[in-house]
């Protein structure tokens, strides 16, 4: 029996409600687009909608999964990936609004970056000295320097980063991916989030909103908890041995089967029965995935596990690789809320980069040597960047107007720098990429047309990018 049936009660009615919606051509187009998912209502024992069998990519996919490394708080792009000599020259001077196309006369005093930048690899990607390990993968990275978004407070910006919207509850990117592609794995959801933030939108950032609940992420721990102590809620029962729990479950299932039989094989009860088996299998599978005992010493070292300050993020990244191996479609790893350097941006960036540099480099190496990097798109980024202007003497404020992210693997052109900001890193001046564009591009990498991945809810079709989004095709090889 397949156990990918995360929502076995997907009835014909649900399918109808969700998909057959618009009028005339619209309706026909939607119907055609949805056919793969909608037309085959699963019943007990048959594959559910959450299976790769239903995946019908709109384009040839470049990646099978996305692994998002989320730096909560907002790293300073001008200190990490977007060197600005002019910023250093003009440090201490006022940034005039007219220099960067702002209405305001003066934007604040510029703060130079103390860090050395070098060009790395054949592509000559600029990376600051804070990422020595990552720099060795420079020819695998595509750095996008022209990302921009809305929301100058964390909460709004996190929601926009994760769901595309802030004032309405919308499905998370990972939930859309799960809905679009289903899971490749029999025992795991298609969307896993490792150490997600509890604040700034909390579960909304990995929720399924109006999409069926099976598309929400399974959360492992939370940002505040070291991953070594984290667990999926209720995935085990310390009071019982596995055989005792199986015995108990057998009793439950026997009651359920009698119940179903007395009702002439009721699909609702049958789906309950299947669901218990799925849960039991998940609970038996997860400990092995969560543990690190099967990993070689050299692998652990690669991720910086066992040494500080890299142990925690190293474990998170290793877990992410295991989920990638298991065919999870969308994996997010979050740091704690530690990148928000309103003061001491220099010391803060040094400390935070040191925690993630080696683990990330290790993750990329490990994915590559296992042959997973070619179909895993790794994305590094945050809700926004930080101001070129100083705050509190030695810090930087939130800056959604321009910031950097990078991608690797998954068909992305390595050694590429895409887009550019002005002389101060204040605003994009070349190939701006809005958050909606990034979302559209992520879906594109998976073979999904962001305009055609829709879900009918409350009388209209919704999509991740609302009415926006342009795919940045240039970053793909």
């Amino acid at each position, binding site marked *: 029996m397949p156990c990918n049936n995360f929502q076995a009660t997907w009835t014909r009615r649900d399918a109808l409600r969700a998909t057959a919606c618009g*009028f005339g051509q619209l309706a026909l187009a939607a119907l055609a687009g949805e056919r793969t998912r909608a037309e085959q209502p699963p019943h007990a024992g048959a594959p559910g909608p959450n299976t790769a069998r239903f995946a019908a990519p709109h384009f040839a996919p470049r990646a099978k999964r996305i692994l998002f490394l989320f730096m909560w708080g907002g790293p300073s792009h001008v200190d990490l990936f977007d060197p600005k000599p002019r910023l250093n020259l003009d440090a201490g001077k006022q940034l005039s609004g007219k220099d960067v196309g702002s209405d305001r006369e003066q934007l604040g005093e510029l703060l130079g970056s103390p860090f050395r930048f070098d060009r790395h690899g054949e592509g000559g990607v600029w990376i600051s000295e804070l990422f020595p390990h990552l720099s060795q993968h420079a020819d695998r990275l595509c750095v996008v320097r022209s990302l921009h978004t809305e*929301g100058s407070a964390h909460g709004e910006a996190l929601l926009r980063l994760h769901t595309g919207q802030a004032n309405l*509850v919308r499905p998370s990117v990972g939930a859309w991916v799960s809905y679009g592609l289903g899971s490749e794995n029999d025992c795991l959801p298609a969307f896993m989030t490792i150490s997600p933030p*509890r604040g*700034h939108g909390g579960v909304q950032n990995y929720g399924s909103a109006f999409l069926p609940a099976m598309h929400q992420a399974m959360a492992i721990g939370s940002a505040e908890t070291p991953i070594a102590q984290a667990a999926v809620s*209720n995935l085990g029962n310390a009071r019982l041995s596995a055989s005792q*729990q199986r015995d108990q479950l057998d009793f439950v299932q026997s*009651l359920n089967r009698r119940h179903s039989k007395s009702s002439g094989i009721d699909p609702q009860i049958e789906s309950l029965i299947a669901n218990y088996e799925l849960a039991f299998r998940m609970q038996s599978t997860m400990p092995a995935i969560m543990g690190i005992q099967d990993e070689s010493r050299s692998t652990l070292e690669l991720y910086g596990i066992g040494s500080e300050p890299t142990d925690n993020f190293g474990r998170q990244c290793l877990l992410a690789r295991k989920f990638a191996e298991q065919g999870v479609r969308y994996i997010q790893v979050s740091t704690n809320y530690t990148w928000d350097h309103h003061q001491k941006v220099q010391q803060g960036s040094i400390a935070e980069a040191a925690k993630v540099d080696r683990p990330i480099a290790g993750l990329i190496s490990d994915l590559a040597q296992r042959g997973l990097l070619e179909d895993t798109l790794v994305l590094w980024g945050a809700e926004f960047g930080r101001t070129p202007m100083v705050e509190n003497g030695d810090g930087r404020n939130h800056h959604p107007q321009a910031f950097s992210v990078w991608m690797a693997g998954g068909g992305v052109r390595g050694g590429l720098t895409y887009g550019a900001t002005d002389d101060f890193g204040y605003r994009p001046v070349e190939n701006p990429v809005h958050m909606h564009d990034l979302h559209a591009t992520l879906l594109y990498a998976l073979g999904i047309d962001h305009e055609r991945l829709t879900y009918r809810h409350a009388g209209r079709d919704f999509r991740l990018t609302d009415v926006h989004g342009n795919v940045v095709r240039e970053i793909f090889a």
Partner: protein
Amino acid sequence: MLAVLASMMSHAAAGTDDPADPVLGRGHWAFSPLRRDATPMQFALAEWPRSVDDAFILAQLESVGLRPAPDADRRTILRRLHFQLSGLPPVLDDYFDYENDPLPDALERHTDPLLASPRFGERWGRHWFDLARYADSNGLDENFLFREAWRYRNWVIDALNADLPFDRFVTEQIAGDLLPFASTEQRDRQRIAAGFLVIGPKVLLGNDPRQRRMDVADEQLDTIGRVILGQTLGCARCHDHKFDPIPTTDYYAMAGIFTSTQVMMTRYMLGEQRMMERLVGIGEEGDQQNSAYETFWREQPRRKEREKQAKSALELLEKDDESGFTDLAAKHADAVSADAADRGRSKDQRVASQKELLERIRAEIASPPAIPPRGMIPCDEEKPADEAVRLSGQFDRTGDVVPRGFLRVVADSPAAIPEGQSGRLQLACWLTDVQAGAGRLSARVLANRIWYHLFGQGLVRTVDNFGRTGEAPSHPELLDVMAAKLIDGQWSMKMQVRRLVLSRTAAMSSSSGDPQSGRSIDPDNRWYWKADRRRLDPESLRDAIWFAAGELDLARVDSTVAYLGDQATAVGDNKNRRRTDFHCRAVYLPVIRNDLPEIFEAFDFANPHCATGMRPKTVVAPQALFLMNDPSVLAVAEATARRILVIDQYRNDEDRAEFLLASLLNMPNAGPERQELLAFVARLADTGTGDDQERRLRAWALACQALFASGRFQLLD
């Protein structure tokens, strides 16, 4: 599916020119006059119907070649009835009484006490909370606590228990603060009802205030549209509605009413002045208490500054920096005590006096007044005004100003909004005005919701969408007759519920009947040839489990979030998280947006960010894992076992098993199940550690947990 599509397309074709045209739109079934006098078509099974509702159901069934399922047995009917009206199971005595009641009005006599019980308001209030997007926190970006939301929650429960007529129920929630009152108590009650407008989620940080103003109005309008009118008004914010007769001008005519309403205010919180939900003191002294409280916090930064300066002054004194001290005293006279400034005194005296002042300031800082009793209450803006259309929904692109008003698809009559008023009171009346307003539509929407809660699917299955993209009613005449009965019955919701639970339709069995033809002719049970088997919602599931253990306290509860700080979620240094270990009914548990109680999160609780008329029905692994492993379930299962082993006296394990099966699963005298249960207990009691008693307790606890996890417990047959 193709048939539906075809009918939808022909529908679209019928509204050829402009779907948003309000006059053309009047032909849509939801806006048309009620067919009050509709009578059911012919039917043969004359002895079956008990009510006019039944007659419509039967006639339709017979017309498609189906027969209604036989009645369920009395025990099954009673279990349904109890869960539907109270959210709790019957106890064994209830089963016994009803099963052995020989009188013809047995069902009535078992129904009426349930309708009269305070449990009714808790149960049906919860249905309303799904629609009202009730929550104890703001959610979205900044999840601040709604410390006073519980007052609105309890108002709703009281209103349903009192069977407040629905038109009044709506009016108070939309304009309660504008209604006349005879006492402070009545004033407060009505104001608290209007908290309905205030409890919506709002983006609190980082957006333009002009944007926020439009977003807040949109949220209110969208909620009211879906909840009361079954219309997706929000679609008309950016453009004329693409499917329904709602032009953008109508949207902004209504939006003007809400932009003329205040639901937010600037308050001092977490160290700064913020735009927060509007709070007003309640009770005779409410205003003074509230203003004293707010004043204290407004002045707190000044006090802290004074403390800082007083501390510096003390340090300067101690190190004999007389000139520094004099400078400081000149700038911050209030931070230096008179004696300290008196150079004629000894240093010790001056220091002591300054220390005393510093302590006094610190004591003041540390002793804020208690939080006064307050409610989340809206009010009209000082200068209510009409709103301009926003082009493409963008707050800063204004088009023509449109006079405030209502949906023109309902009636042409313009809104008569007196100068200086927002128009909320007029809107509230219009919503349920059967003659000149949207009363017919509202009655249809409400009748359908009540039907949905009792039968598991609405006659209009898209319960929140009566527009053209929603579904048409399966039994249009029945819907109209029910709506008319609601109106004629002074909008009594209890009367409607009562009539339907006493109907023959409600008595049908879920498992027998005519499965062959039923499943082939009507697999979705659209014509109600049997009862739909339904899963307990998380509130009923949780309450039933706690009830079985004797751990449920039925007392009414006020706040269950008072121990939380202003941050409703445990973020960063704030370790303070909502608790779920209360023994009260689930309806009183904290509803923190984005941090719901685990059982709510797992079992398809309504997303409290938006109006939800129909909860999703999923079967997902976290549900099974919750029942298998959650520590709270294990604890309550053990309490249940302790109860049957220690507290209640049974002669033997046979009796214990019989009690559990009969009371939890409604399965008296179930031989095979009983044997299995006993065998399971015997097996488990033989394994593991501990003495005999401990092993027995554990074995019974596991058995009870297994019963909770079973379909018989979780489903309403």
